[in-house]
């Protein structure tokens, strides 16, 4: 029982990341009709926003400590950060400690800006081009973005810790009457799940309850008609692209403490997030979220020893297997509309 609860928690957590990426991907696809292979790269850039802020906060000046020596035997240079000198050691240290949450604020304008530039500078010219061209150009962009990151940050993962408050884990077992340590779960992963829920809720209510959202939804359903009403859909769609980029970026920022960011993390998620989107049904936002959580949970269950001992290697293929089964039983994924991306 406790093992099952644990895997459900894991599934929700994995599902949060899948759902957030798939949500942004679907927003872009649904509004602009563009298949964006660079979406994983946006997620990666988000994570590197956290890395960058951490680096900025850690900018420091060097003083020479003659009592110690470095690896070559020269006097050691000791670094002190400017933040610590400006705000005092304690406040300074806690600002650095909170780099990741602070990066949320830092990343939103950056991601929206990147989204705007991408849409206006590149994607806009590809609305009327075949999907294959869109895939090629955004894939090219994804490679360029990740190579640029690699050039500046290297190929190795960069540790980006959560604030100390969120280190350690929460004991659910005690809460539910199990033994101590039966069900423990890291605080930061719980934060991630809550954060994802908030973002997903915010996107949905934005689309549901604002006039802007209504127009966009109408545009997703029938772009031409809305255009005929004299509403400038293009501008709104640009904004939507910015929002989608921000969603991907935020997913990345918050993911940084879970796994150290590296330059190819976007590609690692890309294929998976496409599977999630398609399983959810092209163009369906609730479908993307549902599929994200569904696949996350199934993946977690498949990695249980009990299940692996029955079907060896099931955890390697579960996502693809489920995708095949769903697509064969439900032609347009869980909640896809007819005629979207079927030719």
């Amino acid at each position, binding site marked *: 029982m*406790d*093992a099952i609860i*644990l*895997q459900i*928690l*894991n*599934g929700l*957590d*994995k599902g949060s*990341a899948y759902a957030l990426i798939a949500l942004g991907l679907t927003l872009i696809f649904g509004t602009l009709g563009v298949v964006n292979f660079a979406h994983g790269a946006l997620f990666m850039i988000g994570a590197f926003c956290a890395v960058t802020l951490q680096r900025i906060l850690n900018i420091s000046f060097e003083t020479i400590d003659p009592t*110690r020596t*470095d*690896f*070559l035997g020269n006097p*050691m240079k000791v670094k002190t950060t400017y933040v610590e000198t400006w705000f005092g050691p304690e406040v300074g240290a806690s600002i650095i400690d909170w780099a990741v949450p602070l990066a949320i604020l830092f990343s939103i304008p950056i991601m929206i800006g990147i989204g705007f530039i991408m849409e206006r500078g590149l994607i806009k010219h590809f609305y009327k081009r075949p999907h294959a061209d869109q895939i090629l150009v955004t894939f090219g962009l994804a490679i360029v973005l990740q190579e640029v990151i*690699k050039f500046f940050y*290297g*190929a*190795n*993962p*960069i*540790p*980006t*810790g959560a604030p100390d408050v969120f*280190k*350690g*884990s929460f004991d659910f077992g005690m809460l539910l009457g199990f033994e101590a*340590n*039966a069900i*423990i*779960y*890291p605080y*930061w*992963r719980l934060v991630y799940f809550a954060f994802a829920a908030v973002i997903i809720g915010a996107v949905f209510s934005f689309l549901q309850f604002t006039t802007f959202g209504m127009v966009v939804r109408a545009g997703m359903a029938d772009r031409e008609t809305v255009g005929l009403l004299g509403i400038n859909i293009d501008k709104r769609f640009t904004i939507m692209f910015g929002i989608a980029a921000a969603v991907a970026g935020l997913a990345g920022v918050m993911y940084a403490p*879970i*796994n*150290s960011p*590296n330059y*190819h*993390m976007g590609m*690692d*998620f890309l294929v998976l997030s496409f599977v999630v989107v398609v399983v959810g049904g092209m163009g369906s936002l609730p479908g993307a979220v549902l599929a994200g959580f569904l696949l996350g949970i199934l*993946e*977690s269950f498949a*990695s*249980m*020893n009990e299940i*692996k001992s029955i079907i060896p*290697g099931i*955890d*390697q293929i579960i996502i693809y297997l489920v995708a095949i089964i769903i697509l064969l039983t439900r032609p347009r994924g869980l909640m896809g509309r007819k005629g979207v991306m079927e030719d």
Partner: protein
Amino acid sequence: MSNSNLTRRGLMKTSALAGAGLALPTIFTASSASAFTNEPTGGTVTLGFNVPQSGPYADEGADELRAYQLAVEHLNGGGDGGMMNTFSSKVLQGGGILGKKVEFVTGDTQTKSDAARASAKSMIEKDGAIMITGGSSSGVAVAVQGLCQEAGVIFMAGLTHSNDTTGKDKKANGFRHFFNAYMSAAALAPVLQKLYGSERKAYHLTADYTWGWTQEESIAAATEAMGWETVNKVRTPLAATDFSSYIAPVLNSGADVLVLNHYGGNMVNSLTNAVQFGLREKQVNGKNFEIVVPLYSRLMARGAGENVKGIHGSTNWHWSLQDDASKAFVKSFGEKYGFPPSQAAHTVYCQTLLYADAVMRAGSFNPCAVVEALEGFEFDGLGNGKTLYRADDHQCFKDVLVVRGKENPTSEFDLLEVVEVTPAAQVTYPADHPMFAGGALGNCNPGA
């Protein structure tokens, strides 16, 4: 820096059949004149440095390349000579190899056996490389080693830790300086016993491919021999990025030690996840829960950040070693690049020197002569104490380091501290050890 521009052309065997119909005026064939593949004829000799330059191990590859450049500089008489001064064999004098200036070509393995072989082939066929070296994973090492055997050039493996490289996939033309999974286990086990006692229950998480399996097998065997119980061995997909679903059940399994048979990105993530789950603060069976990472790499430890603190593992070499050879290497590397070298850098530097030395002692570039010179070669002064290149399997036997993540690092490079230097005798195994069975060296192949 004026190396490479490789121009001479290598030959594989020549067949009179091919191209026979194409008669052009000025033909002469430089065919069977050479006695072996890519025999250097001019004033230079070309080495092929085949390292990952893209993909997850690109930084390790970059560090290997730095070390190679340093080695070439030293071989050609530049710089301060580095470990050439401490090396027990004194035939290398900085005048190139057999009087020929050393040049090199580089290539990208992409950490894929296919791409690595393509890259190595282009070095052999196009650039006339006489020796291929490098790599940062066992799959690539085994694949390229096989190629070099067939093509008739020498392969000096880079970072490869799987037992198979000098076990079932060993080749006459291939040599490994790096240590292997068995040696990691043999070095670690006594230290673990001393630290954690002999009544422990271990839970293995293992990357689901050949290297992971050989390491799991080695560690499990070594720890079981000293009384530990292996509770479970769980395979994790190579592509996994989030290990939470594999880590979550560990605490309830009754195990009190977690062994992470992961390397690279897998290791960084699984260790980070394990620490996130608070495993290290827990008590199981009345003992503190411990995590072990059998194969440590400083470059990768950096990716895991503070999570490595206090975690034990083994490594081939570390820059903080205080013997003369290590100090000399760290000094010349550090002065050139501004930071200390990694174990990957160290091993490839040694391999380059060892190859050059073998050629000098053999007096020939002929691979078979080089093989003969390296087989059973005993040396010292390359940073791991007295070392033997065993003739039976072309594996180096030398001291192995057991290290621990440092609690208070003074710099971003100062992440590990050496806990114990396990002497070579303790990690030596018979050549017919079952974990290494199933392959044969075969005969050396000079190609041509």
